[in-house]
Structure formats: C-alpha cells, structure tokens
C-alpha cells in the first residue's frame, strides 16, 4: 500500500492511507498514513460494524485536512478487542 501511495505522491496527487502495521509503513515512508490496529481483512472494523467503519473513515479523512509534514503516521487509536484474531495473524497463526 505504501509503495503505491508513494507513486501517487510522486505524481502530485493528494493522498492519505490507512495502515495496520506501523513498522512496515515506517520502511516505505508514504506522505501520510493513519494507523488502525485492526486485523487483516477487517481494516475498517468488524463485519456489519458500520459505526466503526464510519469513525475510521471520518478520522482518516480529517487527517488529510491537517498540515502534517511528509512521512507522518497518525495513530487513530482504533484497537481490536473483540478476540485474538489480530494477535494470531501477527504470529502467522491465522489468516
């Protein structure tokens, strides 16, 4: 995701991204990324949880309006507390 964002940045487009893994985004350094610590495949939140989907999207889009320096990663504060899916994914024990 960060690589693609860098290409769009280089073409002069305004961009903002979500990221689930800070340390990978730090390697790629796109212009502006927003961290949500949700599982892979559930980037905006759980299936059917529209309130969280909206909250993530609104928070991310709001950061695009702020004067962050290039390379900023904003922690939006979303954490996954429903189960251990994300923790198992990070150990490569779940898909």
């Amino acid at each position, binding site marked *: *995701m960060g*690589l*693609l*964002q*860098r*290409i*769009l*940045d*280089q*073409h*002069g*487009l*305004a*961009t*903002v*991204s*979500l*990221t*689930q*893994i*800070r*340390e*990978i985004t*730090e*390697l*790629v*350094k*796109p*212009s*502006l990324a927003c961290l949500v610590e949700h599982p*892979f*495949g*559930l*980037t*905006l*939140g*759980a*299936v*059917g949880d*529209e309130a969280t*989907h*909206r909250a993530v*999207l*609104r928070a*991310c*889009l*709001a950061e*695009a*309006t702020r*004067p*962050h*320096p*290039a*390379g*900023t990663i904003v922690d939006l504060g979303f954490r996954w507390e429903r189960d251990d899916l994300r923790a198992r994914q*990070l*150990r*490569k024990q779940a*898909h």
Partner: protein
Amino acid sequence: MGRYRGFAQVEYEFVRRRVYAPFDWTTFEEPSPRRGLERPLERSRIALVATAGAHLPGQPAFDLGKGGDSSYRELPADTDELRFSHVGYDTRRADEDPDVVFPLSLLRRLAAEGEIGELAPRAFSFMGYIPETEPLLHQTGPEVAGKLLADAVDLVLLVPS
C-alpha cells in the same frame, strides 16, 4: 536480531521461507512529498484505491500464485457487484461486508450525506501481495496515477487489507 522490527521481520521471514525466497521489503530513506488537500472535504472529489483484491464479476480474478500480481482493476464508483481474490486474508469477511476493506458503499453514503463532495467516477483495486515491485513501480502504479489525474481527484484514499 532480525533486519526489521516487529511484524515486518515476521512477514519477511515467512514469505522468504514459505512463499517467495527472493522477497525483501522495498524501503526508502526519505518520505514521498505530501500535497495538502486544497479544498474542504465537503467539496472534494475523493477516489478509493485499495489492495483488497476487489474486482467485478466479469473481470478476471487476481493471480494468487507465489509470484504475486501487480495488475489492477477499474471499478465504477456506483457498483455493488464486488468479488474478492487475495492470498493475504480471509476474503469471506469482505464477501459478507465489502466496506471492511473496500469502503466504496460507505464513501457513497458520506457523499450523499454531504460529508464529502463526491466520489471519483472510478475506483482502483490491486491485490496487495506483490513481492516483485518493479512492475508496480514502473507500470501499473504510474498508469493508475495518470487515470486519477485525468479524473481530477482532490484526494486519494488508500485502504490496505
């Protein structure tokens, strides 16, 4: 002590050992330049670009082989006919609720409610497993950038999966 921190090291080791031996992260010392949003969100045209492996029923699915897939699909912004093919996550969740990784429907609702100006006429979809990045960096990525510029988008929202 690994080369990378946290999950970056876990994924690096996993892909090299189990999927694609030559894999390494493409890294950069400097951030890419940031262009700020030039008008309020409620007057902005926003494009969705995501790596969830979304495609239309009539489009080819993404290649789920070990070499990855750097191609992309164009999807009209008003479509509800989404399919998902991706090696990196369980696509059954996205089949049930596409907004979890491809929030086209949610962006349409935000536009209808006036929170954003409008959706760009097309969204772009990649499949996020791309271990060989040269085709993305030099062909498909620049192609999509050109199409987003042609669509006169004010902001590109990128969503990983």
